[in-house]
């Protein structure tokens, strides 16, 4: 077995952070090598160095035994390294084949060699069993297909070492299965794969060897046979893997939120959600699982009064709020953790004191009788949230954009749970945050639930849904197609309902 990549004493520092601290390990060619670690452990930096996007301060990189000094990704591509980014690097209005050959020809004005490229790409897609119609526009593809295009793109450039950065983050379980099949197929044909992830289940399933990183250092590399989830978790964070908190529920009989025959107004000829009937009691977490774009966003916006409702009623503790404005609903006690903290949850150019006021600007807490802002309360409450929710920030005067994603999210969650809301709508509350923040947010949601808060949890993270929910629905094409018992349901089951297979 040859060594495809050998990393020797690579170090890289950014102002104030040592992102990689003398990292050394080897990657055997023709294997799947996983690199795991929490967010901020230095995985991404190492990969950027491998792909020529950044230059190491120290250390040597050897590709197939030769020392490599990459100035840019172009050099890395030339030595056969290809990167499949977590966020797809595809131009949506170009076709599949155009995306694959983009940049290969330079920028001259000759006729593009369509009749040469298309058969070549089709052959490649057959050879590696990555089926795709090369004439479709990227806009018309699903997530899994887009990923296939990305893989084909790097293969077409002659890559035999693939770096996949969190490739499963955007996929549903069935698509993950398919991806793994494809990867195994690639490896059997001699391709080397670097698989970056923080999901240990997946790593244990797919990888041959696993390297663990923590705090910029390489903690160790183990063969799969020697590894277990527990060992890896301990290597990753130095303690046990946090699991979704257990349920010891005290569901009250009082209604918290009730949706009756709710139908959304059609937009672009599509009804976003229809015939939604839900009853959420106090002290209960109701989960909604679904692939993005199946009406979750519109439903949550309808509850908040942002999306128009065609028919049906919404009750908050027996008060009908269907006709109330968003501001009035907020004042009645609806809290909201939005799915996109950057654009909906925070004004990132403002500091934390100003951000704590968001959504409650007209409540008595922050608005005096003469309608001036009560900054004293805001300052006090933001300090409370920072303390209680372990938000790592120099001060509450810091701008929100200076915080890491996990800390921003903890702040948003704290703001929404504090101040005694009557109902909490949590949309993807732990998307894109590290394990530590995730555990804290799960704990806080559970605490709030135990204090008698009703929660509607909309999420794509199946572990989160299964671990937190007291009851669980699957939404598919705008309808609640299935109610499942969270204690008994499995991710595979959920996945098949989410993709419309099990109905």
């Amino acid at each position, binding site marked *: 077995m040859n060594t495809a990549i050998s990393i020797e004493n690579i170090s890289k520092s950014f102002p104030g952070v040592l992102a990689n601290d003398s990292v050394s390990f080897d990657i055997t060619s023709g294997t799947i090598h996983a690199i795991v670690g929490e967010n901020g452990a230095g995985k991404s930096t190492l990969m950027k160095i491998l792909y020529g996007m950044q230059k190491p301060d120290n250390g040597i990189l050897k590709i197939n035994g030769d020392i490599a000094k990459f100035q840019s990704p172009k050099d890395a591509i030339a030595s056969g390294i290809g990167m499949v980014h977590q966020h797809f690097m595809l*131009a949506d209005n170009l076709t599949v084949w155009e995306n694959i050959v983009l940049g290969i020809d330079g*920028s001259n004005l000759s006729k593009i060699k369509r009749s040469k490229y298309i058969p070549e790409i089709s052959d490649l897609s057959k050879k590696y069993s990555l089926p795709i119609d090369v004439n479709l526009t990227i806009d018309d593809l699903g997530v899994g297909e887009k990923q296939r295009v990305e893989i084909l793109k790097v293969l077409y450039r002659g890559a035999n070492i693939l770096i996949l950065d969190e490739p499963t983050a955007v996929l549903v379980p069935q698509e993950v299965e398919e991806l793994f099949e494809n990867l195994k197929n690639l490896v059997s044909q001699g391709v080397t794969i670097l698989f970056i992830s923080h999901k240990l289940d997946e790593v244990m399933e797919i990888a041959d060897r696993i390297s663990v990183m923590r705090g910029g250092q390489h903690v160790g590399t183990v063969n799969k046979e020697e590894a277990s989830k527990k060992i890896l978790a301990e290597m990753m964070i130095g303690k046990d893997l946090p699991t979704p908190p257990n349920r010891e529920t005290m569901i009250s009989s009082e209604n918290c939120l009730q949706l009756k025959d709710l139908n959304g107004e059609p937009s672009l000829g599509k009804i976003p959600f229809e015939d939604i009937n839900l009853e959420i009691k106090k002290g209960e977490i109701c989960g909604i699982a679904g692939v993005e774009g199946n009406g979750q966003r519109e439903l949550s916006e309808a509850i908040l009064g942002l999306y128009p409702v065609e028919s049906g009623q919404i009750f908050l503790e027996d008060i009908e709020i269907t006709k109330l404005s968003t501001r009035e609903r907020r004042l009645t006690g609806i809290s909201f953790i939005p799915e996109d903290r950057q654009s909906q949850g925070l004004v990132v150019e403002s500091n934390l004191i100003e951000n704590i006021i968001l959504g409650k600007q007209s409540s008595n807490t922050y608005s005096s009788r003469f309608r001036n802002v009560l900054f004293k309360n805001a300052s006090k409450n933001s300090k409370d949230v920072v303390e209680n929710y372990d938000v790592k920030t120099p001060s509450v005067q810091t701008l929100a954009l200076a915080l890491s994603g996990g800390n921003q999210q903890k702040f948003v969650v704290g703001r929404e749970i504090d101040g005694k809301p009557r109902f909490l709508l949590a949309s993807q509350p732990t998307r894109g945050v590290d394990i530590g923040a995730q555990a804290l947010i799960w704990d806080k949601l559970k605490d709030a639930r135990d204090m008698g808060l009703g929660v509607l949890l909309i999420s794509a993270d199946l572990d989160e849904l299964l671990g937190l929910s007291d009851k669980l629905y699957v939404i598919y094409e705008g309808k609640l197609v299935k109610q499942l018992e969270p204690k008994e349901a499995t991710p595979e089951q959920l996945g098949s309902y989410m993709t419309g297979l099990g109905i």
Partner: protein
Amino acid sequence: MSNFLNFIKDNKEKTFFIFILFWLLVIAQIETYSQLTTSGTFAATMRLAIPILLAGLGGIFSERSGVVNIGLEGMMIMGTWFGAWAAWLYGPWWGVAAGIFGGLIFGLIHAIATVSFQVDHIVSGVAINILAAGTARFFSVVAYANESQGGATQSPRISGEISSFSLPFLSGGTFLGNETSDLLRNLEDLNLFFISDISGLLGGLTRDISYLSFIALSLVPICMWVLWSTPFGLQLRSVGEFPVGSESLGINVYLMKYIGVTLSGAFSGLAGAYLVIESSGIYRENQTGGRGFIALASVIFGNWRPTGVLMGSGLFGYADALQLRSEESVHGLLLLISIVLLALSVYLLFNKKSRNGAISLLMAFGFGIWFLNSTSVPNEFVYFTPHITTLVVLSFASQRLRMPKSVGQPYKKGEGG
């Protein structure tokens, strides 16, 4: 019969379009409104449409590379000034070259501001428009103030003109030095339904065409070729869609944007030069009269495609030609609107959209009554016809617009590694 119905069902927009054309033809048979389809009208249409077409093609290059170019108008102004100045001094072809140069310089300024310094595209575009108007006035004072006929707001008349040609046999052009027949003219004079009208259209487009017009029209297929069939075009379009991805594939994003925006300046400059050399023979302040903005609108409603811009500018040119050549024929358009609205209301009522159908029916009657009780349209409306026609038709024609995803967004080098 069922084939026919299916065709209508699958091609609603096309059917609607053909329906309008049919009634236009019918109305054109009425003596008062015969100007609707004469070769003179179509020749004027072409002359009036080409400046908008050229600026619009430029706009496509800029927008496809991801830069909003609201400065088309300003770049056109520079085209008119430089075009007139060089044409006055050295002759029309030098005017064309100078016009392109003038627009190109301002395109380059827009590129430097928006690409290198990440200035907001709208802000920079507005600045370009203001700067161009001021610069043109300044240059005029310097260059023309002491000339006879010239002044702070206009240039002396330019000397010479660009020669023109007609198609031999069809439109009476010369062939190997011999005069040939003018078949299309003869057909047009026969006053046959459809045949004469089509002959008018073809005759207008093939008789006495200046070489500059020919070049301008041939730029449409050339632009389509460049943007959709060459590696350069592929890169340019990818940059406007997702620059981070393009850069990750080793494409020079800044260079592509520079080329796109500078080209849009050159095209607008050519548009301005055309306006001076082919239409007025003189530079006048405010000569462009918002054509750059119309061009921008036709880029957007034309779905960022050369054919869309061709249709948009053609429509504007046609309406403009009508209002210039015969006010009576604008009156004929009222009848057309009334008929079209009537058909639309029938369609809507059939599809159970009773409220919209009723509104459209009411408007159809309104226009019908207006048509029957008047012999002309008030002047104010006549001047306004081209703008309102273009906007109404284009906004109906393309309901689903797909703009380049990252257009208008600043991009900093290095985001894609």
